[in-house]
């Protein structure tokens, strides 16, 4: 899903390629890019499930405004992944309600 050849943008000015963890998978992304971009490049669409109805949510506004893309990052919940820069070794987890899988009583997934 990364754009390899673009007619106008010759260089997306990426930093170092690093590894991070998404749930139980190890993924690669560029440090400094948004966590959401790294996840999208790895094909991840679902960032969280809502608290009451357990519905999937993903990136919506990508500028830190709508909070639809929040996840648990390095143990902190509600991190806006579209504006949070990726760092090497980050642990990114799908958020269920306001917490980890298994902690939300309405959880269906």
């Amino acid at each position: 899903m990364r754009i390899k050849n673009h007619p106008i943008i010759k260089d997306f000015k990426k930093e170092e390629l690093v590894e991070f963890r998404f749930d139980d998978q190890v993924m690669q992304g560029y440090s400094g890019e948004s966590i959401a971009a790294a996840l999208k490049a790895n094909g991840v669409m679902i960032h969280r499930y809502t608290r009451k109805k357990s519905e999937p949510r993903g990136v919506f506004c990508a500028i830190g405004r709508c909070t639809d893309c929040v996840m648990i990052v390095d143990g902190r919940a509600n991190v806006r992944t579209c504006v949070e820069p990726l760092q090497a070794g980050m642990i990114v987890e799908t958020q269920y309600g306001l917490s980890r899988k298994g902690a939300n009583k309405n959880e269906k997934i």
Partner: protein
Amino acid sequence: MKPNMDYPGKALIKMKRYELIIIGAGPAGLSAAIEAAAEGMEVIVFDENQKPGGQLFKQIHKFFGSKQHRARERGFKIGEDLLKKAEDYGVEVKLNSTVIGLFDSKTVSVKIADSIEHYSAYNIIVAAGASEKMIPFPGWTLPGVIGAGAAQTMMNIEGVKPGEDVLMVGSGNVGLVVGYQLIQAGSNLKAVIDASEKIGGYGVHAAKLARTGVPFYTSHTLKELKGETEVEKAIITEVDENWQPISGSEKEIKVDTVCLAVGLSPMSKLLEMAGCQMKSEAGDLIPICDQYSKTSLEGIYAAGDVAGIEEASAAMVEGRIAAASILKELSYLDQAEFEARFSAYKASLEELRQGMFGIGEGSWDYPQKSREGYPLAKTLLKKGYLKAEELKKFPGFIDKKSSEVIPIIECTQNIPCDPCQDICPKDCIKVEGDIVTLPELDENFECSACELCVAACPGQALFLVNHNYSNNYSSVSFPYEFFPLPELGSRGKALDRAGKVVGEAEIIKVNQAKINDKTAVLTMKVKDAIVDQARFFKEGDF
């Protein structure tokens, strides 16, 4: 300033003073900062984002306007230059700094990391920009539904494709430009829909999409999206004149991504909070400002989209006007110097605001005719392309088959733009009077086929046609900004303005001159009979 953690609340009592505080480091805010700092004023700019420039760095298309508005330059280049200038003048830009309070005492409260800091100034310019509007419909929360700004962030900043098969909802300039950029990023733009009966944005932007084969569905809305955990398909439906769905008109479009471009809303909350007098415009509150961008409150100014949605080029001028007014207030400029600057900025702004999309006109308020009296091309408004017979009525079209190479100017709506006139070394193209006048060919034009106009036109509405290329063959030169770029000698099909195959074509010239700023100009050889239709090329046999 580092947050001081000595004791809770210590940060609260700090108050730093500046001559000018600017909220927002986008085109308006940075332009204001440059104008003020160039005269030695002490300026600080706050922006909630990690990077300055607002939305400019996501704008990879060439801008409209004239030379003074930096027309035919791409948005990100304008952004880079603004940042460089701001830096040269020593403007302090504080990022990751969200202004959460603006008070009539001309103080602001700023959230920086986990602390709140307070700043005061003699004058404050609010240039907070706008946020995207959204429309709810069944399925709108599914992953794969994104805003047009999100698509731009992903593809133009992060370099990640927003989706494979995309439906664009909204045909205003944002929808059209982002749709075009999606194709540049390698996505398939399956369709553009709009509930309005007419395309909201500039016809030339729509035409860029239509000629690649993108269908436009005007008078259509999204009925619902289907998909278990992400978008799988969209059901669109036609609407009647009362915006009600017409049953039985549903169409299914298989997409994984739906991009919403349904308008922008000024982020004017801070101004409202400070107590500025506000008015309603298109359902949003905007501050009432005088011609110097000053709000009803002494020392508080508003510039750019926060004061009413316009193009970035207008925002930059508004920022300069606000800063110049403040410079005069604080005696950095004498009356004569201020008046000279102000009248130049005002004239520049007025130029941009003319034409069919001038300030205060909704996109639904279409005139029936161009300013010169030409009836507007109906197919362009509904389907995004001109019909050959519609084009023939306009002054950019000359039926002169005897000449070697003829420029065909497919610019039929009054938009503020004149690079075609500016760049032609032979003065063949005239934009008479002001810059919204439709361009026309000089009667005695002598085209040297330099192709500069083809690449310079931000609307990509200029073509060079040679009716006498060889026996039975004509040639058409056209702009091309997609990947991969067809090579010299490649064979394929010629597409018409609607994106339909009209015949065989062979690329006989590939011009990638540096001056054309990454817009390639391709020349294809086609049969004489289709030269008036052929406007785009697709490689291969299909």
